[in-house]
């Protein structure tokens, strides 16, 4: 933690600062972290007392100021909108986040060890998802998902995979992040290819099929090309995966995200 500013929040516990911080949060942070700082499909739940990247106000100040490399968290003032926040406004936001934190960390509702067994075993998650270098490639790598998504968002993604397709974990504001849309294409020689979109423009599409083969296709050379927002991930209903088992998997993913 060398170089971390040892500054204390001059506005700590000031309710007026927390209110001002709430509005600054809405303008600058809520796009990814949600209106109530509870996180969402893009950014982690900041109401958790334990955070992956910051352990105190000074570190949080640094993270807001400088961003987190390799993640969608941008440095203050670099999202293309505005010149960013003043130091005072960053402290207001920190005060607001602290005011929203759930003081007692929720007890883990699941059994992470059992969740790991399920993930790599009967639940078949690892056929398509990689965690810490092990697993499949068709879906997003889930090594960081416990830290960057809420439990609710993960559960919803498992129960209703098509409701909101996954975004790439970086570049939150990019126009066209990888969304894992489903592509069905028929080539000139009649071969059908079904897979997820790795990238696409008006003329070409890059697809990974279920055997993890990458197909580089030119749209005007295809017999047919269809895209769907119906995810290739199967819908895990309660009959297929019980609430208890799902909570165990979430606990496993969360155990990777938190330190």
């Amino acid at each position, binding site marked *: 933690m060398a170089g971390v500013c040892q500054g204390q929040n001059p506005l700590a516990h000031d309710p007026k600062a927390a209110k001002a911080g709430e509005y600054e949060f*809405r*303008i600058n942070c809520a796009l990814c972290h949600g209106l109530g700082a509870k996180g969402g499909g893009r950014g982690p739940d900041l109401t958790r007392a334990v955070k992956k990247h910051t352990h105190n106000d000074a570190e949080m100040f640094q993270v807001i100021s400088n961003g987190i490399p390799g993640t969608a968290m941008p440095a203050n003032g670099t999202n293309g909108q505005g*010149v960013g926040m003043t130091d005072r406004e960053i402290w207001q936001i920190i005060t607001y986040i602290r005011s929203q934190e759930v003081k007692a960390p929720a007890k883990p509702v699941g059994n992470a060890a059992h969740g790991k067994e399920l993930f790599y075993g009967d639940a078949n998650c690892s056929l398509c998802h990689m965690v810490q270098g092990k697993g499949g490639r068709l879906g997003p790598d889930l090594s960081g998902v416990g830290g960057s998504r809420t439990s609710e968002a993960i559960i919803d993604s498992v129960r209703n995979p098509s409701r909101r397709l996954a975004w790439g974990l970086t570049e939150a504001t990019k126009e066209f992040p990888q969304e894992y849309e489903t592509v069905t294409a028929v080539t000139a020689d009649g071969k059908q290819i079904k897979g997820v979109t790795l990238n696409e*423009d008006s003329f070409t599409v890059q697809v990974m099929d279920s055997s993890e083969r990458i197909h580089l296709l030119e749209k005007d050379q295809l017999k047919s090309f269809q895209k769907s927002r119906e995810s290739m991930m199967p819908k895990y209903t309660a009959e297929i995966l019980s609430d208890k088992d799902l909570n165990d998997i979430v606990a496993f993913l969360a155990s990777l995200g938190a330190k």
Partner: protein
Amino acid sequence: MNRGGRKILNRRERRAKRRRSLRIALLGLIVLFSILGRGLAQVTPDRLANSAKEPQNWMTYSGDYSGKRYSALDQISVINANGLVPKWVYQTAATGKLETTPLVVDGIMYATAQDDRAFALDARTGRPIWMYQRQLPGDIRPCCGRVNRGMAILGDKVFLGTLDAHVIALDAKTGNVVWDIPAADYRTGNSFTVAPLAVKNLIVIGISGGEYGVRGFIDAYDADTGARKWRFYTVPGPGEAGHDTWEGNSWKVGGAPAWNTGTYDPATNQIFWPTGNPAPSNRGAGRAGDNLYSNSLLALDADTGKLNWYFQFTKHDEHDWDATQVPIMVDAGGKKLIAQADRNGFFYVLDRTTGKLISATAYGKTTWSDSKDAEGRPVANKQASPTLEGHTVCPGALGTTNFMAPTYDPQTNLFYVTARDQCDIFSTAPQPYEPGHAFYGSAYFPSEEARPYLGFLKAIDPTTGEIKQSFQHASPTWSGVLSTAGGLVFSGDAEGNFIAFDAKSLKPLWHFQMGGAVYAAPIAFAVDGKEYVAIAAGSAIYAFGLP
């Protein structure tokens, strides 16, 4: 023999004499041409007003005063467009978005890049002739990237508005600074990103800073000296007409910037200049009233800056729907019209003599208006205002279109515009005004239910508002559009493609992957009888031509 010899000598002498006189005549011609040549380097107001006579040149932001972004060049056409090849690439070595529209005059291209870089290139090869970069202070306040949309040219100078709110004249041959005038205080959020417009001997320019609560204005400077000839405040002060459309002192920080280039009608000596959002951009509380002249089209007398008429597209805006889209002058059905595809999702056609609305037709997904007033102007419904919990309104804050330049093709009589279907959740976030600090008053997020966001190139018939053709991009793009006499329309996309379309069908005929998203608008020009099409993408400028 002698005689013969003399005769030969005489012949030689005569030949030599002839050669001498020929040489003198040639020399005279060379001198004459070089003087003429120097004269040609001067971009006179007449040349700008008659730009149709020299389609090889692209002398103003929109290519001509009418705003059409149409080139009469037809060498590159629907027949051969599929054979286009890149001719050169110029890397600006800058990072961020490149929004510049280059100018080309007599074989030299003048363009800009991030952080107020300006440069002149050999338009045949892309080789730089001179480069300039403004030494900007560390605390400038650009709202949306350190961008610049291009320069104006007049006489032997090019003109640049800077991010620290100066207007600068550069010598067109060297890039040397000829004059440098501060227009406003950058520390309170004033900046220039717009390409100025040269009109007669004036350089007309509008301020940016609607996100900082500036008081918007349009200025005109003497091209020779930099002396300010007039200023039109887009937010009227006490005692001025329209002042009563602002609550209390809200006018002082009312915004209404003027950050995109307008057009000019030499026949009536009027400048048509569009204006942006009132400040704070997304919160109407505290500025009750129509908030004139935000989100309006202004018709100003070019000599005095006096307001002849105005038309306000979005009254009392709460969605950041700047009306700063290039208005295009179109003559149709014996009427002198001006058409604008507005950020609020409606396509407006006005009588440009009177400013009277002729039609307003939705050209994208809109939910904010379901009725029109007596004049035919779409009126906001009660559900449109942002709320504390947030609710969805279409279009989103980025608008159905934005700064991307449209084109009007006089061959198809269609208006082509880049459009986006996206809805945002608008939620209030009251903020006090602090000088030089972002002043939005609300937060907006892309609405999940409205995914995916769709991007289009649309062709609109201005006489009916009907969408005649539409091409769907892979995702929304920020590229402007060019039409040419070759039956083509050119545009770029967010994935980095530059695309030539058949203007009639909007079928892509050719494309090239440039490796960077497009935030700029294309132009066409010719050098040595060869046509080129150019556009900025990523942080480079590309020129294309036939093999």
